């Protein structure tokens, strides 16, 4: 049946119509003919045509690198020539070698593979048109999200198809070490960055000069993942600032008039490496990137992965973004070729821009029906899911209800016209199966196996399936986070006072700042947004001072609160572990398995209802959050990532989270009078009471 018929056409559906399936045309022409098409893009008008070797030469001979080489030579006692030799080596390892021939080869292969994997690849033509325009006017930075290896070359593929200059792409060095493939990627425009550069001054210098030179000369669009890596959870990752700094610096220093940032949102119906991701999060190491591994993975080619959406966002002018936020004259007094630590004003601005981009990526991504189903499936008791299964009818009803909520919350939906629910479930047969009016979770391994699993192994097996579901839920989370946090605040504080709710909202926003993307300094806008969305869907009534829950809104509020409950539970558990565990100092290596053990025990005893705390991602996020809140500090001298925990501080945070402390709002207000950096001070105040 056609579910859509029940609903009026909406804005987000209109958006959908603007997408064009680029594979459709590919399927009608020969692959070879496509790969050999004339490619004659309009480049950036200010750019002199320069070759890869010109670029390398410019980097090596830059005043900046000369200076750093001299400095390093002085520090290490080696000769300048030696240091420069080393720099040359680094650059060779790093540098891209973009060649049209290989772009064609890449396009040929990618075309073949994608036609196999996906039913369609939808691209918004308007976004491409704006990009084409922007590329001629200033250096362009393409900033896609990264959810799958598959998307590494998708942007290049699309740009090749539409006669737009091919980007150079920042990639992790492991890709480079893949035989043959590494070289093909390099010649398709990839340049390779080591992981964990740490304090290698020369490496930083070469990398940053390389990146800046690309931006300065505008010789090619630059593509990089501001999230830093592929998100294992399919949730947006808090942006990394290193690359962002390098990319924006030419603007700050006036070396270019403007830089254009283009956020790109790539959404999948089904992610190719879904099962690998879950295992990785549970601590099963990720297979090393290798060419043979790639061929082994070729069995993925047999599968159906539905559709892919590539949404090119509106180009953003760095100049406009930064207007009024920074004063560029701070670079006036030191030669621009010398390294200069940017002011906090500039750093904050970079951080802000990076967050803004990730938020924009979120807003541009399309939510599939499957994500909504995942949200709902995860709110069912786990035994229902694994054993008798969830009623199909109830699930579809509720999914349609949720669809409306998403539209109310201005989310973008990918809601195909034909038989949505069943085809979606069919597509995800590896996670759920639909039989006899019920939907069950598929668990890996043969249930009829001779060796019965230990209870712990059973937990892990279920966890693997749940975490897959979690990642699809995560694709929709960004729409719900802000109203969800408000719903949680209402639930915990039981208050109707707007300012109390705002305080608690801010508190949650701060605690979960590593979990969800919040643009720094926009707490009150976020709160206002949450309020207006809840009001819009009829969940609450707003007045000047108060937020009252409406009878009709209970369903929405309870859905939202339950959506975020796993995060609260996970954080609570880890806080508890840190407080109750004897040691004040621990290493990351001890911490992760210990939390996992504790959680497994509690799940078995029925005291813990979420599997998400088993995910190493959650565990690391909690650690980062506590470090940010200064309840945990990293020991500097330590070689192996040792942390020191301030138990009182952790306990207090946990107590506020579940409202053990009475009269919280007053104290939270106190907290936010001082800034969050003074968290510890706040806790001291609390303990005094």
């Amino acid at each position, binding site marked *: 049946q056609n579910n859509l018929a029940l609903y009026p056409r909406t804005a987000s559906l209109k958006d959908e119509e603007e997408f064009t399936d680029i594979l459709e045309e590919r399927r009608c022409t020969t692959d070879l003919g496509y790969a050999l098409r004339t490619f004659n893009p309009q480049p950036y008008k*200010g750019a002199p045509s320069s070759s890869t070797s010109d670029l390398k030469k410019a980097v090596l001979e830059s005043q900046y690198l000369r200076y750093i080489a001299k400095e390093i030579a002085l520090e290490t006692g080696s000769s300048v020539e030696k240091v420069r030799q080393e720099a040359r080596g680094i650059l060779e390892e790093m540098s891209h070698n973009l060649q049209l021939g290989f772009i064609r080869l890449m396009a040929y292969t990618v075309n073949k593979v994608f036609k196999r994997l996906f039913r369609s690849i939808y691209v918004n033509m308007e976004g491409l048109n704006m990009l084409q325009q922007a590329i001629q006017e200033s250096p362009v930075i393409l900033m896609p999200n990264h959810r799958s290896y598959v998307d590494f070359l998708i942007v290049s593929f699309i740009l090749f198809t539409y006669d737009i200059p091919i980007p150079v792409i920042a990639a992790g060095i492991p890709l480079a070490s893949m035989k043959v493939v590494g070289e093909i990627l390099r010649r398709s425009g990839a340049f390779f960055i080591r992981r964990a550069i740490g304090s290698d001054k020369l490496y930083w210098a070469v990398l940053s000069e390389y990146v800046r030179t690309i931006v300065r000369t505008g010789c090619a669009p630059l593509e990089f993942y501001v999230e830093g890596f592929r998100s294992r959870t399919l949730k947006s990752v808090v942006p990394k600032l290193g690359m962002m700094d390098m990319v924006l610096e030419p603007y700050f220093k*006036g*070396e270019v*008039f*403007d830089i254009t940032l283009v956020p790109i949102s790539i959404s999948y119906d089904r992610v190719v490496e879904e099962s690998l991701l879950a295992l990785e999060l549970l601590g099963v190491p990720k297979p090393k990137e290798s060419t043979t591994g790639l061929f082994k993975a070729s069995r993925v080619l047999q599968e159906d992965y539905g559709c892919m959406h590539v949404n090119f966002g509106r180009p953003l002018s760095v100049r406009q973004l930064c207007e009024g936020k920074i*004063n*560029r*004259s701070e*670079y*006036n007094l030191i*030669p*621009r*070729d010398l390294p200069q630590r940017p002011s906090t004003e500039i750093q904050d601005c970079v951080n802000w821009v990076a967050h803004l981009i990730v938020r924009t990526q979120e807003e541009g991504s399309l939510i599939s029906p499957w994500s909504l189903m995942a949200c709902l499936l995860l709110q069912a008791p786990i035994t229902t899911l694994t054993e008798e299964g969830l009623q199909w009818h109830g699930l579809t009803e509720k999914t349609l209800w949720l669809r409306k909520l998403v539209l109310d919350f201005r989310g973008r939906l990918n809601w195909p016209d034909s038989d949505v629910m069943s085809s979606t479930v069919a597509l995800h047969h590896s996670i759920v199966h639909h039989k006899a009016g019920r939907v069950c979770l598929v668990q890996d391994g043969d249930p009829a196996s001779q060796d019965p699993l230990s209870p712990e192994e059973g937990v892990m097996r279920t966890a693997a399936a749940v975490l897959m579901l979690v990642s699809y839920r995560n694709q929709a989370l960004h729409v719900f986070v802000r109203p969800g946090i408000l719903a949680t605040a209402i639930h915990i504080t039981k208050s109707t006072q707007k300012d109390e709710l705002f305080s608690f909202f801010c508190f949650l926003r701060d605690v979960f700042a590593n979990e969800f993307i919040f643009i720094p300094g926009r707490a009150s806008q976020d709160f206002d947004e949450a309020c207006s969305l809840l009001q819009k869907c009829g969940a609450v009534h707003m007045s000047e001072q108060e937020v009252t829950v409406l009878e009709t809104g209970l369903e929405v509020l309870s859905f939202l609160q339950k959506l975020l409950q796993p995060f609260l539970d996970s954080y609570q558990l880890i806080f508890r572990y840190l407080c109750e565990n004897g040691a004040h100092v621990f290493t990351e290596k001890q911490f992760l398995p210990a939390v996992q053990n504790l959680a497994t025990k509690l799940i078995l005893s029925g005291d813990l209802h979420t599997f998400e705390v088993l995910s190493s991602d959650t565990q690391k996020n909690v650690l980062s959050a506590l470090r940010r809140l200064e309840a945990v500090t990293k020991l500097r001298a330590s070689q192996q990532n040792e942390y020191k925990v301030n138990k009182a501080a952790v306990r207090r945070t946990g107590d506020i989270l579940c409202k053990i402390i009475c009269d919280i709002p007053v104290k939270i207000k106190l907290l936010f009078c001082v800034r969050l950096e003074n968290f510890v001070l706040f806790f001291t105040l609390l303990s005094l009471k």
Partner: protein
Amino acid sequence: MCHTFPALTSDRSSRICSLLYKHGSSMASNSSGSDSSDRQRIAQQRLSVIAGHLQRPVEGNSGILAAECKAQGDKLDVSSERRTVPRRRQEIMKWNGWGYSDSKFLYNKKGQAEFTGKRYRLSGMIIPGLREWMESTFGANLQHKTPAAPILNSSAVQPPTLNEAFLKELKSTGIPFSHDAEDRVFRSHGHCLHEIFALREGKIGRVPDLVVWPNCHNDVVKIVELACKHNVCLMPYGGGTSVSSALECPPEETRSIVSLDTSQMNRILWIDEKNLTAHVEAGIVGQDLERLLNESGYCTGHEPDSMEFSSLGGWVATRASGMKKNIYGNIEDLVVHIKMVTPQGVIEKSCQGPRMSTGPDVHHFIMGSEGTLGVVTEVTMKIRPMPEYQKYGSVVFPNFEMGVACLREVARQRCAPASIRLMDNEQFKFGHALKPQVSSIFTSFLDGLKKFYITKFKGFDPNRLCVATLLFEGDREKVLQHEKQVYDIAAKFGGLAAGEDNGQRGYMLTFVIAYLRDLGMDYYVIGESFETSVPWDRVLDICRNVKARIVRECKDKGVQFPPLSTCRVTQTYDAGACVYFYFAFNYRGLSDPVHVYEQVEHAAREEILANGGSLSHHHGVGKLRKEWMRETISSVGMGMLRSVKDYVDPNNIFGNRNLL
């Protein structure tokens, strides 16, 4: 109060007669011809110098002169009969535009641009390319005119607020004064766009209440004493060429405002040939100073673009810069001694030593004080014998980047000619559009051939190439040697010598560009220039960014036509360069064009500062750029200037409110 205007280039020089102004027979378009006439003329001048020495003592006694200052006719004054600027400026100058009343651009009945009058070499000539350039650059149209109010309507001028007691005592001194509306309006403005635009619309704001014309230092002393006694606001006025709103009467000023016009203090009091200095009254305008010194075989070599009208006192008060500063230095290098009348009395040094270590140089409180501390009355300046030989030149570069690299190298080798300027592509085209009609087929054939050689044979892109203009000065042999050195450097940067003619025309155009703005304003086009100084490594970036900012701001502010946004590197220094920007646009369709213009200029200045450029290289701060002073010189710096002002002029008698 010097430098004005856009100027494609500048030379209103000691060579004024031969180069810019039309004289006698020749309009030398052929360089060898001008060479020989040059030599002849120098020889004649030398003779006249010698004759001068025989006829009269050149050095006078300044004490005696000062005492006699009102009896002008009797004095040992080199100049009195031939001064350029009369008390009533309206006799020769426009009241709502640039320069002499008889000289202006207009489109004749055939729709061709022509320049009227007889004063300049371009006077009476047809400029065939101008119309098309204006139409294609601005989208201007001869059908769409915006004529100026033809005459000054005296009734629009507020009646003067006179301080009767002051007036009474002033009368008794015998110093000439006037409260005639025209006289007052003439001294109420400089040449900022908004000032001229308002005048053209017949709008007149606060104007001075009285104009006084002191004849000498002692007159000034008396006026300042009376002003202090009666609490009257004094605003010194020199040549009126300010482009910083420095002459605007502060609207919040409630006292009677007296404009102190120094134009009648215009004598060279003595020339010291042993030390090569001249002692000059500060009201003399540049062209008179050079002409009179030339008669004695000397020159100062100080040639700001505004030198026809700007005054010595104005140069000192704004820290002026001349186009030949590479040889002669800027005003701070040229000045040996300054006399200034302040409310606390007269400030001057006790001797004329060429350099002193006596604490911070008090001259530097005066230079750049923009009329806030007192009136500069007399200045001793360095002079030089007139150069034996002068030669123009030009170089075409494939692009602006190469041109800047060449100028940087010239500066590095410290071999800059008297003047070296690099125009960007848009300005090059502009210069081209101002080529007067060529009379001979041969010349136009040669031009075509040159163009062919550069664009087709050498492969220069006509939309990217740019041109540097050069002026060499000195003795003949050295000039030729110097020229070779510079051309050799240029060749390394892809530069091709493009002839003396192009160079000479480039400099000649400097002065007409100010007239050209008036023509633009007749057809919906408004614009202005502004300048900055910047370290070498930022020159390219600042040029690109500021030009792009102007274009973007215009678009954002709803300007319907693409603006002209162009620049030129106009001076070189060891550590940086001076950059001039020109900015003009067609304002059809805008309700408040001047406001839009000001917003764009403001944004452009912000851009300059963000790119490491200075607030001003030589135009000064005035009131237009005051808001950026604190960030420019720091709060302590402001405090230092403030305390000097507070000591020297506690009652704010010099109340033009510039600078601070």
